[in-house]
């Protein structure tokens, strides 16, 4: 993976501030929307997963920015760390916050992320200019992903229900890994000097949709959330995003061949 990462700032595409707004507001709106509308009908629990997809897109954009400084094999680690911080923050936030749970969790995650960013730059001396900001963003995105998927599974973010349906049953493990992979995989899968932001973010949507489908499958055993909307909408989003991804690959690739020999010496000159 030494070939990955341009060693400089990632460029192009949608400005990061817009993505922050999308992730933070979308993630919180998804968590609250899913929570309150599920009281009316469990069918609305899928809104939580939509919020999680917003947070995942934001998270993978932040990973892309920070990992472009030649992080290479550190990309998976940073994704796992995002969800590690996210799990701690979201459990704390939901336990103490009550109805303000997601907001408390989000702020806690941001604080943890900032402290880790400062440690990475000042103590470990990594010297990546946007480290503090990126770690703050990644941790926040991780927390919102976990809460959003939990809402899709249970229909609520109330700590008791989440503890019973998500944590005690072990489904938190699948949230952790499916959410974490959705944040880290997009940049990791598109690593290389000709990586483009739209392709990476489209991968994030696609992987987020997979997490949504998995959350829907878990919802079949929960009372407060119904499974079918999450699964159907998740599969639909996955299909759209995957088709777009393939289109973008066709746009960006040197050549897409059915089969063939290697490029000739002259071609490589």
């Amino acid at each position: 993976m030494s070939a990955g990462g341009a060693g400089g700032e990632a460029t192009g595409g949608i400005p990061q501030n817009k993505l922050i707004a999308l992730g933070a507001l979308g993630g919180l709106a998804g968590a609250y929307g899913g929570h309150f509308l599920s009281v009316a009908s469990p069918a609305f629990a899928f809104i939580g997963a939509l919020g999680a997809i917003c947070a995942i897109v934001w998270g993978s954009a932040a990973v892309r920015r920070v990992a472009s400084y030649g992080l290479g094999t550190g990309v998976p680690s940073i994704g796992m760390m995002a969800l590690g911080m996210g799990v701690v923050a979201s459990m704390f936030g939901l336990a103490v916050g009550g109805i303000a749970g997601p907001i408390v969790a989000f702020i806690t995650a941001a604080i943890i992320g900032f402290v880790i960013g400062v440690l990475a730059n000042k103590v470990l001396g990594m010297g990546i200019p946007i480290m503090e900001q990126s770690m703050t963003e990644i941790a926040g995105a991780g927390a919102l992903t976990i809460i959003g998927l939990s809402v899709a599974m249970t229909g609520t973010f109330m700590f008791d229900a989440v503890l019973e349906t998500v944590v005690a049953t072990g489904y938190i493990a699948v949230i952790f890994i499916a959410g974490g992979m959705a944040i880290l995989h997009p940049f990791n899968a598109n690593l290389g000097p000709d990586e483009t932001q739209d392709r990476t973010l489209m991968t994030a949507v696609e992987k987020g949709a997979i997490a949504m489908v998995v959350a829907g499958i878990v919802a079949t055993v929960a009372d407060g959330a119904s499974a079918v909307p999450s699964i159907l909408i998740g599969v639909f989003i996955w299909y759209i995003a995957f088709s777009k991804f393939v289109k973008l690959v066709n746009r960006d690739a040197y050549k897409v061949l059915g089969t063939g020999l290697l490029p000739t010496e002259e071609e490589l000159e």
Partner: protein
Amino acid sequence: MEPLMGMGVLALMGAAATIAGTTEDLESDVGSQSNPNSQVQLAPQMMYPHRIYNKAISGEPPSNALICAIGGTVASVLMTASLSVIFAIAIGALVATAVHGTYCITAYMGRTASQKRFRQPIYLDILRSHTPVMMGYAFITTFCILVVSYIMVAVLAHPFPLTLLAFIWGITVGAIGSSTGDVHYGAEREFQNVEFGSGLNAANSGNIVRKAESGLRNGIDNSWFCAKFGGPVTGLAFGMTVFLSGWVTAVFNPATSLTMGWLSVAAGVILVLLMIIWNRKIEVAARKAFGPYKEEEEVAA
């Protein structure tokens, strides 16, 4: 549980784990995941375009944790809906396999598209032929890991839920596959054109073997090579990990008395020490038998 029954259960878990370890390693060899991936990724940049599947789904531990956790989740949900265990595990592994397929495809297409300036084409026949192979291996891995996890929950009454155990075993099988089997591919197969044991000279970086016995080499050729040693040895390593870690408590059951508990700890420590000594002996013997390089080069390597 009867001691004899306990040993039988352990043997079953060990057998399932051995298969899981083998297929996990071969899966990663078809797609050039983890250790060997850096050279496959580097090759086009060094003017060595290739027809080898370039798949990095992060490292092997997270990617196997993902498929095993998804398989465990689906299986656990289906078992809650009182479907039979075999079906639940099989369907769980199937869903996990489908997810794994999408991860493989995005990794290969995305990474290759990002190497435009090095003129590395995307070969769709590679995508179509390799992805099902990896999905097949991933299915076997997930199925066996779920069998091990289910036995732990249902027979050994482990306090953790199925999904969590599958997740943990997924990380473990990935870590063992990454550290044991990949060396066989990354250090040997990719650099068959240099003298055995010479290490990776910087000048050879990215100069991986790209031509096969017949035609151009691909990931399936690599798994054919690795199936002879790297895959089975990974299976043995993982099978032994599962078997021996359970064996010490099956023989010295801590539930019977405190003394037995301490005896099981002592047995574990003795096993680890034996392994360390044994490994050291193998390494020294291999260096004596095969190592062509001299003292000063050894430091550089």
